[in-house]
């Protein structure tokens, strides 16, 4: 089965999209806007693709010796990503913004700074996180330049200078 992408659906007319919904058992789309109809079709595709994977796994049979040597399918993935509600009145999918964990010393928090540079974040959060002027920025444990643009999944730390006294 061909699984459409957002791009392939965008070029179709609303009438065609509504017909596709009808043929796939998606109800309540006859008066909806084009973007909502596309979202519904994409959501349906994800469900179909997932169920197809299950069918392939079930149908494929191989000798037990070979099967034992091949790593099993990925059943779980863990990654750190958080979102916060930034636009409650926006359309579904645009209501939240993915955040980046930013820390300096013992102080840490999630901030919606994806697309911002490390230098800009340092300036913006210097009062909030008490970031020292000479603190070095590290993204995912590696030294970063101030011009690095933060992406989803990044963890940013400004290394707080070590305490001198004792």
């Amino acid at each position, binding site marked *: 089965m061909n699984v459409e992408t957002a791009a392939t659906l965008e070029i179709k007319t609303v009438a065609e999209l509504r017909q596709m919904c009808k043929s796939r058992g998606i109800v309540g789309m006859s008066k909806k806007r084009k973007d909502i109809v596309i979202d519904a079709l994409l959501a349906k595709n994800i469900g179909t693709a997932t169920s197809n994977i299950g069918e392939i796994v079930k149908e494929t049979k191989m000798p037990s010796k070979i099967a034992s040597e091949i790593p099993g399918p990925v059943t779980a993935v863990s990654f750190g990503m958080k979102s916060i509600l930034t636009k409650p009145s926006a359309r579904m999918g645009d209501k939240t913004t993915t955040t980046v964990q930013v820390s300096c010393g013992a102080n840490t928090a999630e901030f919606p700074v994806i697309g911002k540079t490390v230098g800009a974040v340092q300036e913006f959060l210097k009062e909030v996180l008490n970031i020292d002027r000479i603190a070095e920025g590290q993204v995912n444990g590696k030294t970063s330049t101030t011009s690095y643009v933060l992406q989803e999944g990044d963890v940013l730390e400004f290394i707080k200078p070590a305490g001198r*006294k004792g």
Partner: protein
Amino acid sequence: MNIIIVGLGGIGSMLCDNLLRYLNHLNVPGGVKVDLIDGDHYETKNSERQTFSRLGDKASVKCAEMNYKFNNIVCFDHKEFINENNVARLIPTGAIVFLCVDNHISRKVISNHCQTLNDVTVISGGNEYTDGNVQLFQRKGGVNLTANLTEYHPEIEFPEDQSPEDMSCEELSKSEPQLLFTNLTVATIMCWMFYSIYIGKDITKHGEVYFDISSMATLAKVRTPKSN
């Protein structure tokens, strides 16, 4: 077990009392040898943050106290500040070093020396007025398991302060204000690290622990060695 405590100020004197009390009851095979290193004197003005039973050389006074209190450990005093000339004699391979000094020059000297040893554990603490940090540098079989003290801290790599040896008596007596509870927190986190190492927990993912009394926060950070 060879324990070395460098610096017996606000952090070191409180660490010493509690760590040695714990060690005394451990029944470590082969016993526990403790070296206390500090070239400074305990004076009345230090009493607001430091625990000593009498005035005098810090290393000698604390050593006598510990040997009197605890039967299962043997304590030795070294009345000298650590420097590039004596560090190799004072810190041998296999030691567990608690670094409680009040300057980055001493931290750098010890970090550089320990980088040349085969096996060593360094737990280094320091603080400002209400916040601070504890670093763990572990090296086994000539390989760094965590970053050394200077890798993530250019202020230690390029220290701007003075060694206590190079300071006049007047400069030494002018210490910046410190909070007893901040010193105590550093000493406590140093004990956490030691305990985790002693019970065999892998704490290489917690190479540095920060705390901030004013925000009631503690945060552990990974410190992967950048070079080996």
